[in-house]
């Protein structure tokens, strides 16, 4: 908890500088009128949310950090041995383990590939949606909604079935014979990546499409009349106007793809042959629940937390630089 407050402070401190950047149109007084201060009322409204978040999010985060400093294995859980404070020893053990670095690298690389794939497919199809008539648009929208609605675990098994070496249609179509996608490290990651892109591009596509629709048509017409190419329109007109939306979908994708669990767990059978397809989440789960090394699992969780926090801070700084009002 201490950490999140630390995070908030620098942003708060800079608040006086913000109004200068704001245009008169977005000053609070014009937009919303004088707001009631409300005394205790806002806190009354916030009470349920804060209670739930405090008990089930903040406290577990604190516990996670705490366990990562303890010796906490099956013996301690069952009460057979006293819990011992180990300080940073869990982290030292973790960082000394080659597998951890390998998994960390794989997680970052895999998440980056998923994010890039999702954004590329999502944005391309969103632009495509604005160029076509109602019928193809409806077809693509419905297909995307279908992929989005598919539960993660269902998507995982269906994609495995599609790429099954014996019964799947993909190998027949590509003439791959009985090539097993899940056997090799990279082909297994690729298969999971395709599934992740499939189930997460719809959010990007629909959000960006909604964003493009909110842009006045005259702006684009003017650009086209000036002879701008499609690519140029995207780069110089659409992308800048869509920047806030692109920011949101990018950050959301980073968060989701960095935390992929079900797909890897189900599609690669718990992390692939000899753990070749482990990502941090699955690695932490295996450490904690399969081998009862709860402190090590927690230390991995803390590492993930810090990495995602860094992404969040970067995003917040970006928002601030653009003069966004919170």
């Amino acid at each position, binding site marked *: 908890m201490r950490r999140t407050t630390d995070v908030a402070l620098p942003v708060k401190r800079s608040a006086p500088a913000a109004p200068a950047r704001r245009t008169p149109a977005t000053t609070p007084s014009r937009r919303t009128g004088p707001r009631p201060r409300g005394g205790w009322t806002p806190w009354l409204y916030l009470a349920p949310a804060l209670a739930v978040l405090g008990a089930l999010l903040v406290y577990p985060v604190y516990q996670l950090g705490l366990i990562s400093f303890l010796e906490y294995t099956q013996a301690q859980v069952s009460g057979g041995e006293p819990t011992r404070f180990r300080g940073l020893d869990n982290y030292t053990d973790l960082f000394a383990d080659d597998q951890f670095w390998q998994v960390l690298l794989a997680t970052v690389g895999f998440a980056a590939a998923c994010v890039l794939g999702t954004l590329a497919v999502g944005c391309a199809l969103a632009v495509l*949606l604005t160029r076509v008539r109602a019928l193809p648009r409806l077809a693509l929208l419905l297909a995307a909604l279908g992929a989005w609605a598919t539960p993660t675990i269902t998507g995982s098994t269906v994609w495995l079935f599609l790429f099954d070496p014996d019964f799947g249609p993909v190998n027949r179509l590509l003439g791959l014979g009985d090539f097993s996608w899940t056997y090799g490290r990279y082909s297994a990651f690729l298969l999971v990546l395709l599934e992740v892109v499939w189930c997460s591009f719809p959010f990007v596509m629909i959000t960006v499409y909604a964003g493009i629709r909110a842009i006045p048509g005259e702006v*684009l017409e003017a650009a086209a009349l000036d002879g701008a190419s499609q690519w140029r329109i995207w780069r110089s007109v659409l992308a800048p106007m869509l920047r806030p939306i692109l920011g949101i979908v990018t950050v959301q994708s980073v968060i989701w793809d960095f935390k992929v669990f079900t797909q890897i767990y189900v599609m690669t059978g718990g992390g692939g042959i000899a753990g070749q397809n482990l990502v941090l989440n699955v690695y932490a789960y295996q450490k904690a629940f399969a081998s009862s090394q709860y402190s090590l699992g927690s230390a991995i969780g803390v590492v993930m937390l810090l990495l995602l926090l860094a992404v969040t801070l970067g995003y917040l700084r970006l928002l601030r630089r653009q003069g966004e009002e919170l």
Partner: protein
Amino acid sequence: MSRVRLPVRRPWRLAAEVTALLAAGVVAFPLYWMLLGAFRPAGEIESTEPRPWTASPTLDSFRRVFEQQEFGRYFVNSLLVAGSVVLASALIAFLAATAVTRFRFRFRTTLLIMFLVAQMVPVEALTIPLFFLMRDFGLLNALGSLILPHIAFSLPFAIWMLRGFVRAVPESLEEAAYLDGASRARFLWQILFPLVLPGLVATSVFSFISTWNDFLFAKSFIISDTSQSTLPMALLVFYKPDEPDWGGVMAASTVMTVPVLVFFVLVQRRLVSGLGGAVKD
């Protein structure tokens, strides 16, 4: 609907439409294959020369799914969990979003930033502390161990998203309501709530999806009493990595997916406009 109409030359538009239809086909194909697999007779599923149609559809796989253990029970459990989470988080988020948009108070910005940061917490990493928390409260093997954490995890995003909708309701409306003698509670529930309902629907889609999808918590918290389990676990009864019962897996997948699909199609318009509304500001 079509405010953005780009002047596109005819051959390009045709190419764009063909591409869109092809993309739709590719995106929909896994779902088609799932449905096909669910209705195929056993012999055909095991064929090494799979055909993209079936001449003799059968309900055998569905029968197997519903006869297996307590599939119906899992289904009801999943609905209970997702339903409770959607309702509770929508109500709690509505109140919180109202607080942070319609009042000025100390720590408002700090709170907003904390909600944003809370979205980034890798909830999967919290499985370990939550496991001990649930154990201490005697909630292991109970649906509550799935409901409570999911309410907490959907809240930050829901609040963040609803903010845009609450902000879009003009302040003058609130003043008018008070001038007419409405109490704060009356304004909240009889005026504001109906107005942000479309936003709540869009928000609920997200909490529903993340709860319906949950596999890790169900796997970790429901350990001995499997009657308290949810659909993702039921699917694994048929999916044995060594020799999966593909017909059963596809039928169970279909049963799991169809309610979500129906839900999505029902709220489709609201979802698209909701996403537009949430990201516009």
